[in-house]
């Protein structure tokens, strides 16, 4: 059955050629100009970044609405005021704690411990995670254990830690490590799993050694997943820290936010309890807004992954 291409051979005609079969540009300069024209046609014009006020106003409005509801509920008087204090009572307690210097001490102690514990966890978890992700037998052996550790609430380690280390900072850090390290390792491993296989092929073709592959290709490629792991690792270390501080009070353990919360409970002072809870929450939100948010946004924007997201 003769088709178009076959008849082309027989008649030797060239009328139906759809793509250029011969040189289509006249010399290097012409080619350079054509390419430059096409490049500018196919590239987006750079968009200018503006401050988007809705990012600040909307969350602000949400908080105001919640506080109004809180105040309304308290004003209706279903419960005794000392059991459910209103926003104004809690604000007064903040002022009190500030004047006593307790607020500053508690935030500083906890934040410092949380950050130090988190940074040490990162330093331990990163090489271990990279090793597990790159060496299959190790991953098979330890992968399930590490996933399991992530599921185990790190508070479960508090009694053991108190028996081993007593009421010292070591107890607090031990619990923080067991909370943060597994989730950072898992984040890094899942980040590595999502790397397009082609990146490794490119690395091989470019002649990367095992170490170069791990540090210059795998680690940067896995950065979005790794960052997710870091965020979760921070959340876990902050939670574990609070749990440890609430349970382990006294000894040489300093006065942190968890201790403040526990003190409020002992004194049956609901305003102190509420103030401590709000401070724990505020520190978490501030770290997200000031540290992880900007890093993540920058990372995604640089890789062109931000378009169309609701961030």
């Amino acid at each position, binding site marked *: 059955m003769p088709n178009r291409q076959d008849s082309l*051979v027989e008649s030797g005609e060239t009328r139906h050629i759809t*793509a250029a*079969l011969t040189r289509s540009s006249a010399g290097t300069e012409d*080619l350079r100009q054509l390419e430059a024209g096409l490049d500018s046609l196919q590239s987006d014009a750079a968009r200018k970044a503006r401050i988007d006020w809705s990012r600040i106003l909307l969350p602000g409005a949400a908080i105001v609405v919640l506080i109004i509801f809180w105040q309304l509920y308290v004003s209706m008087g279903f419960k005794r005021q000392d059991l459910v204090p209103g926003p104004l009572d809690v604000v007064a307690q903040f002022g009190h704690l500030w004047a006593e210097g307790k607020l500053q001490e508690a935030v500083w102690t906890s934040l410092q411990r949380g950050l130090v514990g988190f940074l040490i966890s990162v330093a331990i978890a990163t090489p271990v995670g990279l090793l597990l992700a790159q060496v299959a037998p190790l991953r098979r052996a330890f992968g399930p254990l590490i996933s399991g550790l992530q599921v185990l609430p790190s508070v479960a380690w508090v009694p053991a830690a108190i028996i081993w280390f007593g009421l010292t900072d070591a107890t607090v850090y031990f619990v923080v490590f067991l909370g943060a390290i597994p989730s950072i390792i898992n984040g890094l491993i899942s980040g590595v799993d999502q790397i397009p296989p082609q990146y490794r092929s*490119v*690395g091989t073709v*470019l*002649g990367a050694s095992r170490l170069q592959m791990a540090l210059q290709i795998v680690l940067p490629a896995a950065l979005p997943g790794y960052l997710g792991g870091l965020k979760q690792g921070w959340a876990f270390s902050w939670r574990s820290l609070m749990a440890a501080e609430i349970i382990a009070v006294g000894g040489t353990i300093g006065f942190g936010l968890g201790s403040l919360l526990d003190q409020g409970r002992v004194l049956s002072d609901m305003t102190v309890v509420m103030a401590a809870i709000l401070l724990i929450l505020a520190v978490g939100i501030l770290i997200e807004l000031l540290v992880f948010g900007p890093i993540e946004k920058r990372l995604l924007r640089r890789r062109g992954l931000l378009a169309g997201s609701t961030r």
Partner: protein
Amino acid sequence: MPVVLENLGKRFGEGAPVLDDVNATIGPGEFVALLGASGCGKSTLLNIMAGLEAPTSGALEVPSDGAAFMFQDAALFPWLTARENIELALRLRGVGKAERRVEADELLELVHLGGAGDKRPHELSGGMRQRVALARSLAQDRQLLLMDEPFAALDAITRDLLHDELERIWKETGRTIVFVTHNVREAVRLGQRVLLLSSRPGRVVREWHVSEEHRTDAGLAGQLTGEITARLREEIRRHAK
């Protein structure tokens, strides 16, 4: 001879061979188009030449320093700028820091992207990305350049221009190029020699020489394209049962 393939065979596991008894010789500075229908093992053959896969039988001779490779999608690293992508190839080759910058800029200039060095891959068009990938593979500084359907995903206008561009760069740099494609026109446009690979198993069944006249005479090129297409279709028809 940069590349000699002797009775090369490849099978995955216990399945039917993908490549069987492939014989070819590619001379220094030659531009060879490797043509075949889908599933004929062209990419496998290229991967074997690149050392990404091992053959199961036969022998092959490739340059001892390996080959540069260009993939179908640009496969640029999204966390690096265009220049940094090229610099990474230079760095993995062991080029010093000061020279890297100079050499990367020269390579960008060679692919006519002098002004786009600081852009990130997602800010570049498909054609620009492929040119950065070409510059990166040239940064490897290997005599042999293997290309796996590098222009298959581009629009026709861009592809025509990149054909001119690749021909120009090939002439300027004197590389030996093996170019895999399933596009007969592309094979005729670029190759000095077109090798047709049969499908299942892949084997070199026919080869054509493309002369300098074919580059300028559209009639002659069209005739050759028709002839190769007819032979390719014959090969495809064999599989209709």
